[in-house]
Structures are given as structure tokens and as C-alpha cells.
């Protein structure tokens, strides 16, 4: 129950841009972000932004969702002998959602900043790397588009290898091999072990 006005507690971490590829002999090192000059340790913690106006986008989204929920409910017909009907609940949810969106907009304008989620592998002192996220989303879209046609065994392998590539792996052959083992293995595990047939796709009859 802390005040919403508190700036995000950013963990003090080592400066970004320190080459990571040197630490072990492991081939699976992660691509480093471009070195941004010699940042002395301890100064890497970025100043908390005064206002996070990106929240206005979220607020707008909430309002849209809320208004649409109310509109959608208004198209329903109330049944016979049903004092509440299917409309009441969505009306309440949509209205409150719209209000919450407005409140968030006000809070954002008054300087309320969110506290982004932290975790073991998360380094919030760096800039967000949305390119990697976009690559991963692309890989998932490919999966959705092809899983019926190519089957889980092939699509799953592409999914794994594509994701490792997106995340900065530099060993494509090994990644593809692991992907194939995982996807074919999971296909057989579900088929034989649990009796759930996953889509074979173009490999129908081969697997």
C-alpha cells in the first residue's frame, strides 16, 4: 500500500553495455548492447522519469474497452423472467473500466509513475529492447499461420530456433537441432504417452 507517487525502485545494477561475451567460454553468449561509453559504476541508475505519459495510451485503451463493453451489452436482449439479464454485469464492468481509465489518465498527468515488474533476469537500468520483442512476436505469428499446414513437429522446431535467434543466440545449427528434438519429442510424448494426437501436418504418415 505505498503511495502511487513513489518513483519506481530501480535495482542498482552494473552499467549497461559491459561486454558480456567475455565471461565464460560458453558459445551461447548473448549479444551485447552497443557500449555507451565508460559509464562509471553506480551512476547507471537512470533518473526516475517525472511523468510517464505512455500511461495515457493505456488509459485510452481502457476507456475504449470499457465503452465497447457497454455498447456490446446494449445490443443484447433481456430474457423472459430474468430480472437481471445479461446486460447488468457488463454495464457495471464497462462503466467502471471507463472510470478507471479516466482516473489513470488523471494520475499519469499528476506525475504518478508505475512500478515496472522486476525479476531474476530483468535489468531495468537498460533501455527497453522492443526489437527483440517484435522478433519474438513475428516468430509466434509464423507459428500461428503455419501450425495447421506444417504440423507441430516442424512449426515447433521453427518456433524454438526462431526464438533463440531473436534472443541473441549465435549457434543456429545447434538451436535448430534442439528445436527438432523438442518438437518431435513433444509430438511423440503427447501422442504415445498421453494419447493426445497433435497436428501432424505435412508429415502425416511419416511421424
Amino acid at each position, binding site marked *: 500500500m505505498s503511495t502511487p507517487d513513489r518513483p519506481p525502485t530501480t535495482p542498482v545494477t552494473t552499467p549497461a553495455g559491459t561486454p558480456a561475451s567475455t565471461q565464460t567460454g560458453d558459445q551461447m553468449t548473448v549479444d551485447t548492447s552497443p557500449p555507451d561509453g565508460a559509464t562509471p559504476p553506480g551512476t547507471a541508475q537512470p533518473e526516475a522519469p517525472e511523468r510517464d505519459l505512455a500511461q495515457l495510451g493505456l488509459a485510452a485503451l481502457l476507456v475504449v474497452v470499457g465503452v465497447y463493453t457497454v455498447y456490446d451489452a446494449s445490443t*443484447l436482449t433481456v430474457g423472459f423472467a430474468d430480472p437481471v439479464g445479461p446486460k447488468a*454485469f457488463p454495464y457495471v464492468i464497462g462503466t467502471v473500466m471507463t472510470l478507471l481509465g479516466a482516473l489513470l489518465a488523471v494520475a499519469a498527468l499528476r506525475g504518478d509513475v508505475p512500478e515496472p515488474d522486476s525479476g531474476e533476469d530483468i535489468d531495468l537500468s537498460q533501455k*527497453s529492447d522492443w526489437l527483440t520483442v517484435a522478433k519474438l512476436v513475428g*516468430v509466434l505469428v509464423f507459428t500461428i499461420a503455419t501450425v495447421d499446414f506444417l504440423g507441430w513437429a516442424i512449426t515447433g522446431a521453427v518456433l524454438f530456433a526462431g526464438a533463440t535467434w531473436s534472443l541473441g543466440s549465435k549457434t543456429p545449427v545447434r538451436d535448430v537441432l534442439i*528445436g527438432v528434438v523438442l518438437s518431435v519429442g513433444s509430438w511423440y510424448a503427447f501422442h504415445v504417452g*498421453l494419447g493426445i494426437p497433435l497436428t501432424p501436418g505435412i508429415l502425416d504418415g511419416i511421424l
Partner: protein
Amino acid sequence: MESLELLAGGLATAVTPENLMWAAIGVLLGTFVGVLPGIGPAMAVALLLPVTFGLEPTQAFIMFAGIYYGGMYGGSTTSILLNTPGESASVMTALEGNKMAKKGRAAQALATAAIGSFIAGTIGTMLVVFFAPALAGVAVEVGAPSYLAIMLMAMVLVTSVLGSSRLRGFIALFLGLTIGLVGLDLNTGQPRLSFDQPLLADRIDIVVVAVGIFALGEALWVAAHLRRRPLAVIPVGRPWMGKADWSRSWKPWLRGTALGFPFGAVPAGGAETPTFLSYVLEKRLAKKGHEFGHGAIEGVAGPEAANNASAAGTFVPLLALGLPVTATATIMLAALQGYGIQPGPQLMTEHADLVWTLLASLLIGNTLLLVLNLPLAPLWAKLLRIPRPYLYAGILFFASLGAYTANQQPFDLFLLLVFGLLGLLMRRFGLPVLPLILGVILGPLMETKMREALAISDGDVAGLVNEPVAIVVYVIIALLVVVPLVLARVRPPRKPTEIAAELNDDDTTSGPTSGPTSKETVR
């Protein structure tokens, strides 16, 4: 003791070679997934849910119990060896546990965590055995209005008491409630928020929502902020404890259990509060008080026990009322619903054999955890070095597999992506995940109860408050909303970790801190 006889019956069902095998697989899988950095117990359970699809309910439950405790134990291993707790309940464990590990006492920290979890889990499960049937007996009498009120209370508790921003908690809750609306209205059969998509009208599979928000959302969020320098992992041998460690640990285990269970059983929202209280209590009671902050074993033993006891305690509202109060419990509820079982007052009478098997499985899973994981700890520690591209690509792979196997529809993968992006958005904007998932699960249930209550009263709003239980619960909700507002004016709110850090800083001048004062009463 009728409960004990029924439990014995459950044990008899559960202890067959085949079932023991499922329990062992569950424990190993759960620990494996739980140890992986970035994966908490809720995500572990969500990711492994599809594995149980092909099994009989009994076997699935047994495996589930193993996954549940395994995932929790895996999480504490990570926080001790990495000092970066993946979830709020392990924050206190990491505080002392990692300091112990740095002093070369990682083996003892892991051992006291494992044995403490075992003791707390066993005592906690036994308490469920005695409490849940009694509570369910009362709960059968609870009508729709009271049930609606209790669900509202759980939502208010989880949304406003936990988390750092109440506004964001409620935003998450209402996002969840909106998701819960999607699909055919259960009374009139009209599709709501379905955009003329038959697959949406069919209602969204909760597994897809959970995996999307927990697993894919987390993986995408981590991908955007991947730590470019791997964390230092502290090497560990086989866990063991010396005589001094035992004598320093057993009291904190029991005290932690006593603190943790009530907080889990009363829908007061998770293990964060009891682990914190346990830490403060142990610190106050410790003879070697100065060792706190430098790796005191009591500071690992107490909070770990409190964490597991509270996890066991959450089974009381889950089994007796069908009310989940933690993210993990919510997914367990979804799993039960997947088998066509609606937890709630009737569960104890209609599916008694299943309930007792589940409780027996919890005991077995707990025991297997201790037997398997003490020797395997060094192996688990190696998992922490897994290259991150493989780890998160693996999460993506298994999340997709989980969402796809549910119905074998590419559309489910599309929904997974949508919920994954929503999960990413929520992490970016500091929206807590638990209220959302609670809203998805409880929203439709609440609507049913509300319409039931108002149908009985023929639309009269008084029908919502015509039971004494309902009135009492509404008063409690009002207090829950008002009291924090008053407290916030009296003193500035602070986070448990900050208080704990302060306790360590000024040990000599530990005057009246603003930490919870209930520690005197729980002795």
C-alpha cells in the same frame, strides 16, 4: 476421527506404484520448472497443466500436488542462490538465504528451507484435513447472496490490500472481469464481446489466459530487458545441517507454520505478509540477533515455513468455498474446472474421494520432495546457468504447446499471443497479475450468484443482503476499504523489504518501528 479415516482412504488410493510414479514425475517436473529463473510456482503450474490433460483426475491431482510443492521449492532455491526472488513470497528467504550462501553456507540454507517446507507443508495439510470439512459443512448453508459477498471480499482483499497501487490493482481486476465476460451468456445463450467469432463465443480457455499472462507475458517482458551480464550463481554441495543448525531451525519452522497457515486459510492474500511477519519475529527472538542481516539461518527457516504453511492454508478456501486467493490456487481451480469439478461447498460431499486423494497426494508430494530434492540440489543449481536464449525460447515453446494442446486450434495460439502482449503491457505499466486472473475466474461465478440471488428476490436489490453472513461480509469489506485510507493518512506506507532493511541497519536502536505489531500476539 472421521477426517483421519477418510485421509487414510485417500492415502490408500494414492499410494500405488503407478500413482507414486506420477507424484515423483510431478515433483521433478515442478522443481525443474520452478528452479528455472523467472518462473514462479504459478507459471510452473500453468505451463505444466497440459501435461495432466491425458490423465485420470486422480492421477492428475497426484501429479499436480507434486508440481505444486516442487515449483515452490524450486523458487526458494533460486532466491537463495541468485538473490533475486522471482515472487514476493520469497523476498524474505532471499534476504538471509543469499547472505548465508555467500558465506559458504548455501548447503545449510537449502537444507533448512527444504526441511522447513516439508514440516510446514505436512502440518499445514493436516490442518486442512481438519478444517476444510468443517468449513464446507458451514458453507453448504451459505446462500447465493452470502457467496457473492464472500467473492467480493476476496477480490477487494487481493486487489487493494496487496500490491503497491490500488488504482492499478483495480484496473487489472476489471480487465480480468472483462475477459470473463467473453463468450455465451450462461443464462440466455447470447454471445457477449465475441465479435461474431464462434471460437470466442465458446468462451476462452482459462489455460490460454493463464499461460499467456504468466508465461508468455513474462518471457516477452524479460526479452525486452534481458540482463546482459549473467548473475553470479553460488555453487552448492549436497544440502546438510549440523547439530547447531537443527537446534536453531526447529523453532522458527514451527513458528513460521503457525504464522503462515492462518494467513493462507483466511482469504487474506498470499504469503507475503506471513513471511514478513515471520522474519521480523525471528529477528526479535534470535539470541544472536546481530547475525541477522549477515546470514542467520532462522531468517531462512521461519519465512520458508511460513510460505509453505500459507500455501497449504490456501486449500481451505479453495476446497471449501471454491475461492482461490493466490495465483497458483487460481490455476489449480482452473484445472479442477477442466475436469468438470466445480470447487465449492458441494465438492466435499459430491467428490469426497477426489478431495481426500488430493489431500493425501499433497502429503506424498511433500515427502517425495524432501527425499528427491536434498540429493538433487547440486543438479538443480546447475540449471541456473542455463543460457538465457534457450530458457526463454523454451518458455515460448512450452507455452505454445500448452495453449495448442488444449483444443488444437491455431486460434488459441492467436489468443495466447494476445494475452502474452497484454501480460507484457501489464508488466510495463505495473499492473499486478493476480487480480486479473482472479477476475477471469471469479467474474462469471459472481454473475451467476448475483443473478441467482436476484431471481429469488424477483429483482429486489434487498435480495443481496437478506442473509446475516452477507451483511457481516459487506461490513468487513467496508472496513477493508476505509481502514487503509485512514492508516495512509496517519503514517506513510512502506514496503516490507524496506522495513526489513531498516531493521538490519539500526539494530542497536531498534525502537518502535512502524512494522506490524502483531508479533507479540503470535508467540
